């Protein structure tokens, strides 16, 4: 195991200065995530426009460098994407953390993928995987609720 692979500069940077750590005004979807074992909390706010595109995404919460960096990078990467694309990115990321070597999606460009792969160091630390995935699961929950609301309206 290699701590340098876990705590890469980009992780430390996002962990220390998380992007989008705020509350979106006029958000129309949100969800809370909580890790009861360690007490980490995240609250994700989404603003989807009429075309189901992520107009804004932000988060509030506290946690370790890994969980803060993960939420920060995630919010950066999904901004401007369509809802279906966001879901694909989320699933791809979770698959990668769980088992796959590489990211498979064709939505993110190579630079973005490299950025996201910085989180793959966590695979060697099973106890820390949840830190990296909490915000992603929370984003899924926020989106799924949105769909439910859409379905109800339909």
């Amino acid at each position, binding site marked *: *195991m290699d701590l*340098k692979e876990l*705590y890469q500069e980009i992780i430390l940077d996002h962990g220390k200065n998380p992007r989008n750590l705020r509350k979106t005004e006029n958000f129309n979807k949100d969800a809370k995530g909580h890790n009861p074992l*360690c007490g*980490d909390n995240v609250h994700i706010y989404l603003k989807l426009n009429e075309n189901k595109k992520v107009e804004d995404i932000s988060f509030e919460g506290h946690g370790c*460098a*890994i969980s*803060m960096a993960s939420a920060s990078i995630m919010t950066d990467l999904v901004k401007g994407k369509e809802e279906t694309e966001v879901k694909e990115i989320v699933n791809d990321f979770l698959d990668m953390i769980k088992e796959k070597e590489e990211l498979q999606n064709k939505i993110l460009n190579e630079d973005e993928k490299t950025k996201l792969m910085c989180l793959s160091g966590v695979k060697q630390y099973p*106890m820390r995987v949840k830190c990296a995935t909490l915000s992603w699961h929370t984003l899924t929950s926020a989106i799924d609720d949105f769909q439910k609301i859409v379905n109800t309206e339909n």
Partner: protein
Amino acid sequence: MNIENIKKEFPIFDEKIQNNDLVYLDSANSSQKPRVVIDRIYDFYSKEFSNVGRSVHYLAVAATNLYENTRTSVQKYINAKDKNEIVFTKGATEAINLVANTFGQKYLEEGDEVLLTELEHHSNYVPWHFLRNSKKIKIEFAEINEAGEITIEAIKNKITNKTKIISVTHLSNVTGAILPIKEIVELAHSKNIPVLVDGCQGAPHLKLDMQELDCDFYAISGHKMYGPTGIGVLYAKKKWLDDLPPYQGGGGMINEVKKTGISYGELPNKYEAGTMATAQVIAFNESIKFMEKVGIENIEKHEKELLDYGLDILRKNNSIKIVGNPKNKGGVISFTIEGVHPHDIATILDEDGVAIRAGHHCCQILHEKLKLPATARASFGVYNTKDDIDQLSKSIENCKKIFNL
């Protein structure tokens, strides 16, 4: 007391943990086991196994004697008046649940108050919370002072004529504060209020004398006393065990069972329903003997030295904040490092073989009060040395390096 020799009695320290010597600073969570305890479990299962208290064959009688021997050892170790005041449970958690459940059933009514403290572990809060739901009781929390301790005044402030039981920790697993139990018991008894002491952190580190302490209930965790998991002890004054209803129903705890009714067994069987953790109880006797051999006074003195040494070193480090500063403190140092989350600290320390705990340590009420989502905690046992603390300090420096501090 020669620590190097004592350390040799714990086989885990012969192991390399991820290629490192183990620096185990998580004894408040669970202690490591000496060879005598591990061997006793193996020997009992290999050569002596039988269930206890039921059959009349040779092995059953021998196993029953061994099982009861532990009860006598515990009684002597904590200076309880009567052997039957020792009830075996699966842990301190079950011991507290037993009291909350049976005492609650018989004595608590809507509007009654249970007094806890802000230092309590979840295991001394959640069982009482059940009664908040089922019986509409109220739970009050005595407040900590700035040093992270509970004073007798803090208890006094929260006692009302509705207070029906006081349930407090002996030693905080976060701030290390040792509570003035004797004074609390005297105060409570002057108002006819019984006292339960959560002794999870008290029993492994402090000399215990139930008759002197005079508390009504004392919960003990076996696995924090160099013993096996799955074993705990509830000490309760005999008057309570006679008076309270049984906790769980099953084999072994009955006197006579008929279609029309059931009468319950005498102590200690009344509270030990079903097949108990026999091997663990028998091996727990070896933990008690181990602690007696080392001597609790020596353990206390050794851990106090480690604590003073550790506090000295960590206080010199400007980026470290130590949580709480109790005058009377056990071998626990909870801390934070400015700019590094406790989980990151724990992962980085682990890389050097330094095992600490990070999180809220099952004390969310306290962490909320302290406005800290999590802390890192180093806690000591009899096998720790000053070298362990030096390594802790060195690994903390590594944390700061990795985080560019």
